[in-house]
């Protein structure tokens, strides 16, 4: 086991995949000479050269499109968005080009690409450096969506995403990059976390909390606080948002009969809505309370601290909602 930060786990996964498979290459803004805005690809250019670690112009459309074209021709491109917000410039490439490719090639041309980058709020990044737009791609057929919360998962999921034969949008919460540390397996163990498998990060009896990304840590904090009040939370870290691991969710729901879904994106039309609907469809008779959601308010992520705090969900929000559910 190696004890590393969340960021280092991603770095190592990329590094080891680059070593393992010469078809893997990286492309993005400032990823080579500088090693990326957050330093995820530091040292890669010297090791793998400029053909496999590509400093691209400010052209998110092209950055993703190059991965798509190269994938059609047998390569595995990993595109870095300097901030995940900028994926909006490459939206068409993800949704209309990569997402549909296999379908319109009669199943002959899979598109193994990863579009990765820092996402999320709580750092004063304001409107365009804070967003969690996973719902855009959650809604898109043909595209997988991943967001780890711990270094071991970040490591295993990045490897799985690169080896997966489909377009994967991989969210790395910037708040976790250097704050979260944990053990990851040694390189030779060839550790993979299968896409589409959730993980129970804490076992509990009273309420199932379904969440992902930075919110996993908020939920675990809330669980610790509520334990003293005799409320026991089971925290499920989805790890992969699409495809959803309904099996793990439903197993837990049958045990607790109460569900709280927590996500950082605006509440309306978010991933939580789909999870809620599926639980209602598939486990209605097991429920003892309405399915509840804690999410961001339906606004942008504003700059000023009091505003950002007001919009984004907090540990308190989870605690209050869980108390309400427990008392139901």
């Amino acid at each position, binding site marked *: 086991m190696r004890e590393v930060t969340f960021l280092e786990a991603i770095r190592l996964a990329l590094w080891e995949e680059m070593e393992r498979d010469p078809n893997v290459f990286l492309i993005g*803004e*400032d990823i080579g*000479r*500088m090693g990326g*805005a957050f330093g995820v690809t530091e040292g890669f250019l010297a090791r793998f050269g400029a053909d496999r670690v590509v*400093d691209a*112009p*400010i*052209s*998110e*459309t092209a950055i993703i499109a190059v991965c798509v074209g190269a994938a059609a021709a047998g390569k595995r491109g990993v595109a870095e968005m*300097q*901030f995940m*917000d*900028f994926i*909006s*410039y490459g939206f068409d490439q993800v949704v209309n080009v990569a997402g549909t490719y296999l379908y319109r090639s009669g199943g002959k041309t899979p598109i193994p690409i990863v579009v990765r980058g820092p996402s999320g709020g709580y750092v*004063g990044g*304001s*409107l*365009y*450096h804070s967003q969690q737009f996973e719902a855009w791609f959650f809604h898109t057929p043909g595209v997988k969506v991943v967001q780890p919360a711990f270094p071991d998962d970040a490591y295993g999921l990045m490897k799985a995403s690169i080896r997966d034969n489909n377009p994967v949008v991989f969210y790395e919460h910037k708040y976790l990059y250097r704050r979260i540390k944990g053990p990851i397996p040694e390189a030779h163990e060839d550790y993979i976390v299968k896409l589409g498998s959730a993980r129970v990060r804490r076992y509990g009896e009273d309420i199932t909390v379904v969440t992902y990304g930075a919110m996993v840590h908020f939920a675990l904090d809330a669980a610790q606080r509520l334990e003293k009040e005799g409320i026991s939370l089971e925290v499920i870290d989805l790890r992969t948002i699409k495809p959803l691991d309904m099996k793990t969710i439903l197993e837990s729901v049958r045990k607790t009969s109460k569900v709280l879904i927590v996500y950082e994106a605006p509440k309306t039309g978010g991933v939580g809505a789909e999870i809620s609907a599926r639980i209602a469809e598939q486990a209605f008779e097991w429920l003892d309370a309405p399915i509840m959601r804690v999410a961001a*308010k*339906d*606004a*942008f992520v*504003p*700059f*000023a*601290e*009091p*505003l*950002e*705090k*007001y*919009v984004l969900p907090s540990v308190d929000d989870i605690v209050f909602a869980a108390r309400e559910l427990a008392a139901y």
Partner: protein
Amino acid sequence: MRTRRKNGQQTVAYHQRLEKSDLIEIYRRLWFARLFDEMLYDAKKKGRLRRGNVYGSRGQEAIMVGTTYPLRPDDFVSPIHRDMPVFVFRGMTVEQVMCQVWGKAEAPTRGKDSWSHMGDMNLGIVHSTSMLGSTIAVACGVLWAQRLDGRRDRVLVAYTGEGATATGPFHEGVNFAAVHKLPLIVVVENNQYAYSTPVELEVPTKTVAERAKGYGIPGYSIDGNDFNAVYDTMCEALAHARAGNGPVLIECVTYRLQGHADHDETRARQYRPVEEIELWEKRDPLPRYREYLLNTGLFEESELPTPPLDIKLQIEQAIAYAINSPDPEPHTALEDIYDESAGVSL
């Protein structure tokens, strides 16, 4: 002194027609831009400013002053991250700008967005986002509205870094403006780097101005650290655009003397040769303009203080004002998402 030959006639360059009062105002604006940058860096370093990045404009002052000075009050600008002083040159108060930097309730965005992502359509300042290049296309819409209003003479000056000329919206915007002959002046501040990436990995041509050929519009590549060159070129471009001849691209060659933003100071001295930075320090536009002014014979040394202390005081007062002004109320985060004031009903 620079003169130009036009239609065989010797003409006086635009900058030579400026009055002494203009020259002193220009000198002061250059210093305003310099001090604005220095004092915000300092505020960030000292912890007086705790949130957001400071994107420096040190070394790029002549572009901001030279491109705005010849504008009419009813022209438009769309400044971006390195153009903070332009907001003041076009009518915002220093207090407003500082409130924006500090995320205060009185800021033009009411604390919602940060730094240069602000505007004021009453002042002709078009709002930008982080999405590089996108305002170039938005500018076309602002100019189209003028066309609909019969105001084809109002010019819009859109700023962009050289790196952002690689984006789709930049290309689509300039192409649109060129097809429809909109009075758009694109000022490319070529400071040689986009974050860590050198210009040769951003733009394939020797100059950014060469891109203009592809749009069939005039493209200038000029010394962006020479106020007079910027001013003269801008005056020419304005005449061209106002006369209905369509857009102009002006590449102002300069250098980003600091990091990409205040957090990047250490790395910026690693991904760039230090000798290069030192070379460009010597091309600082401020001493250059001061020397020009002294050479005109119109000024005593004492008339050109370095820096003008009253400007420093003005900026410091605005910073203090922002620091002491109220934060936005949390619930206002949910305001301004929709405007229902029109009361449209079915």
